[in-house]
Structures are given as structure tokens and as C-alpha cells.
């Protein structure tokens, strides 16, 4: 069996339980969901209009500069130049070229790569963003250990959150990944079908929020542990297409 493929399968399996605990779609998938999308128009600083596909509550991203790619070993600097008008973030793809720990921005998101990631060619993380205040004088810092090699491709972007959609019953639906609070949150059911889980069902499954640390400990001790299941619906919130698993 192809060792690279086998390593990828193993990695997917190891991550499986955590995926099941957090079925909400990953940030990038929520942004670029292929089904049931709305088409959004976003005017750019230069007057051009970008047509972007995102789902309600998802993030619309417009690239405002040419991507810059830099490779390095140890600490390094990514020179992006002056930020264009309208930019509010830098979007980047990070690749570990050797095992190690890396940080983009100071302080910024960190990436840990092991040998298995390099072997499985899964050491690339795309669609990451840092706010503009991490860019100092047009430069973005990369922090890495001595001899730890990396590659970053980055560009200035303008981001905007798409408005939530409203179904026939007056409920809002869409992604909650970017701060929106829809009644029906986009989620993937345990059977792999994409749909929406009702916030009120999640609240019931997880129980009420504690109002004090003491109450939190009491609730934790009294809580039934194990998985709890909530229905996953189509966008109009009636037809059930699967179930969503949360760990209590």
C-alpha cells in the first residue's frame, strides 16, 4: 500500500473522533461551501466587483494585492508592502517544510508539524488570516526554531460577513463561524449530510449555562457524560437529514 496514502488515511482516522465531537464544518468549508450558496457581490477599492460564493453568515474575501511567497529557515520576515485601501486582513497559506513549531505574526497563530505531516504532505494550512495590526511596516514576522524550514504565501484581503438568510418560518440560518448567531447553524450530521442544527436544540443538549464557577462545578459533577444528539435539518428547519453529536 502506498505509504503516503496510508499515512494520510491514518491521520484522517486519528482525527475522526475529534471531528465527530465538533461536527460544525471547518472554517474554510463553511466559507466556501459548495451547496446551497448565495451569490454575494462585494465592491472593491478599485471599483471592480468580485462575485463570491459564500453561505449566509459566511465570510466574503476579496484579494487586494498580488500574493507574495517567501521560504525561510528559522525566524524570517514576509515583506508585503504597504496595505492597499480597504484591506482589513492578510490571508495566507503556511507550509511546514520540515518538522517544527512555527508562528505567523508576533504573537500570532502557531503551527506544529511532525514528521508524519511532512511524509503525508499534509503540512499545508490554507485560508488563514491575521488582522492588519500584526503587519508592522508592511512586514509580517514568521517565528521558527533554528533550522525549521517553512514557506508562506500571503496577500492583503478585504473581508466582509454575508448576511444571514431567513427561512419561510422566519428563522435565520447560516454559518456561525464568523460571529453571526443564526437560529439554524450550518453543520454536518454524523451520516455526512450537510444541514443545519437548531441553536435551541444544542442548548438543550448541552444544558443551561452556569452563572457562577461554583455552579459550573456542581453542574459538571451532576452532568450525564457521553454523547448527546440533536437533529440536523434542511434549511427550512423541518425535514431531518441526520443527527449532530456533541459531547457533554
Amino acid at each position, binding site marked *: *500500500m*502506498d*505509504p*503516503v*496514502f*496510508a*499515512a*494520510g*488515511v*491514518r*491521520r*484522517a*482516522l*486519528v*482525527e*475522526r*473522533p*475529534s471531528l*465527530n*465531537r465538533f461536527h460544525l464544518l471547518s472554517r474554510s468549508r463553511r466559507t466556501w461551501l459548495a451547496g446551497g450558496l448565495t451569490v454575494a457581490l462585494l465592491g472593491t477599492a478599485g471599483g471592480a466587483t468580485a462575485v463570491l460564493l459564500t453561505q449566509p453568515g459566511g465570510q466574503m474575501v476579496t484579494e487586494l494585492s498580488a500574493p507574495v511567497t517567501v521560504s525561510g529557515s528559522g525566524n524570517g520576515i514576509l515583506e508585503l508592502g504597504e496595505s492597499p485601501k480597504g484591506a482589513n486582513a492578510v490571508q495566507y497559506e503556511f507550509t511546514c517544510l520540515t518538522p517544527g513549531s512555527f508562528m505567523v505574526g508576533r504573537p500570532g497563530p502557531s503551527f506544529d508539524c511532525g514528521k508524519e505531516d511532512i511524509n*503525508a*504532505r*499534509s503540512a499545508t494550512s490554507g485560508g488563514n488570516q491575521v488582522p492588519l495590526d500584526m503587519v508592522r511596516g508592511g512586514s509580517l514576522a514568521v517565528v521558527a526554531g533554528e533550522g525549521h524550514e517553512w514557506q508562506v504565501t500571503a496577500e492583503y484581503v478585504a473581508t466582509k460577513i454575508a448576511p444571514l438568510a431567513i427561512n419561510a418560518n422566519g428563522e435565520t440560518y447560516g454559518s456561525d463561524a464568523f460571529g453571526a448567531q443564526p437560529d439554524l447553524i450550518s453543520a454536518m450530521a*454524523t451520516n*455526512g449530510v450537510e444541514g443545519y442544527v437548531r441553536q435551541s436544540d444544542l442548548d438543550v443538549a448541552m444544558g443551561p449555562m452556569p452563572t457562577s464557577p461554583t455552579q459550573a462545578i456542581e453542574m459538571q459533577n451532576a452532568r450525564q457524560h457521553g454523547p448527546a444528539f440533536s437533529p440536523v435539518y434542511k434549511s427550512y428547519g423541518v425535514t431531518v437529514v441526520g443527527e449532530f453529536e456533541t*459531547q457533554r
Partner: protein
Amino acid sequence: MSNDTGEKESALWARVRAGDGEALGDVFDLHHHRVYRHALWVLGNTHDAEDVTATAFLELWRRRRDVRQVEGSVLPWLLVTTANVCSNAKRSKRRYSTLLAALPRSDAAKSAEEEAFIRADAFERVDPALAEQLRDLPRGTLSLFILTAIEDYSVADAAKAIGVSEGAAKTRLSRARAALRNANVSHTYAQQTEGGTS
């Protein structure tokens, strides 16, 4: 499988059921060579066999609450599932098609070692006509055939793995042997089938 090994795997499986991803990875390490060999045996194509192997393990996780262990091992369940996935590879893989497409593959030519493995452990053992006939067997019967004739499980254990009585398993295997004889597959494999089910 020795009792000791069975107990160790049983403990590993308990961790998987409790949601331990590393334990699931260890189960993959333990059995993926056997599962792949089986998929390759039936399908005769390395790429498809890899996809089927991945699918069998993903199904192992998805259906973890229903998995039957035999002597503490999930291998019989995996082999049965592999046979089922091979029987209808296209439909079974659909659930995981996005994931399978995203998994990296080596673009290097197959190593001499792998070529040798394919020749020695798969193609040289399998008459293509038999593989073709096997694919046409009913699902449960194909699983019984694989477990008994290829993997050397007893009929009783194979029956346990697929959830039928030993008597029913014997009847199905007897019909399979007749079907394979009628299909005029190579004498060697008809003998192999006879030998494995006695």
C-alpha cells in the same frame, strides 16, 4: 489469534469506542496490511484497493457501535466489510469520496518490494476468473469465503463475524463451492475453497 493478543486488541478497541483517535490509528496499523491485501486480492488494482482499505477503516469508525469482535479482534469485521465494499466499491466509497480524493498519494513508481508483494501475494494466488466469480457471490457468502478459504478462520468464527449460524454458513459455503465449480474456475482455487471450509 492468541488470547493475549486478543485481550490487547480488545482493550485497544474499548479505547476506540470511547473516542480515542490514537487508538483508532493503532488499529489501522495493526490490520491495514491484511485489509489491503484482501482488497487487492478481489479487485486486482492497487488504487481501488487503497480506496477500499481506507473506506473499510472509515466504516469501522462510523459503525463502531455495531462492530462484532471475534476472539477480541475486529479484523474479521474489517474483512467482511472490505468484501462488501469491494462488491459495490463505487457506492460504498461515495460517502467518503471527498476525503479519499483529498488524501495524498505517492507519485513515485511502485517500489520493487511492492511489485513483488502484488505478484506474490495477490495475482499469483488468484485466478482472474475466480476473482470475477467471487465478485458475483452474494455479500455474506463472499465474506464467508474470504474468512474461511483465505484467512483461515474456522466456519464457526466466520459465522460469528457476519452474524449467522454455523449451519447457515456451511450451507452458503457449500452453494458457493458449487457455483465456483459450475463457473469452471481453476482447479487450484476450487481446491482451496474446499480445504478452507472443512
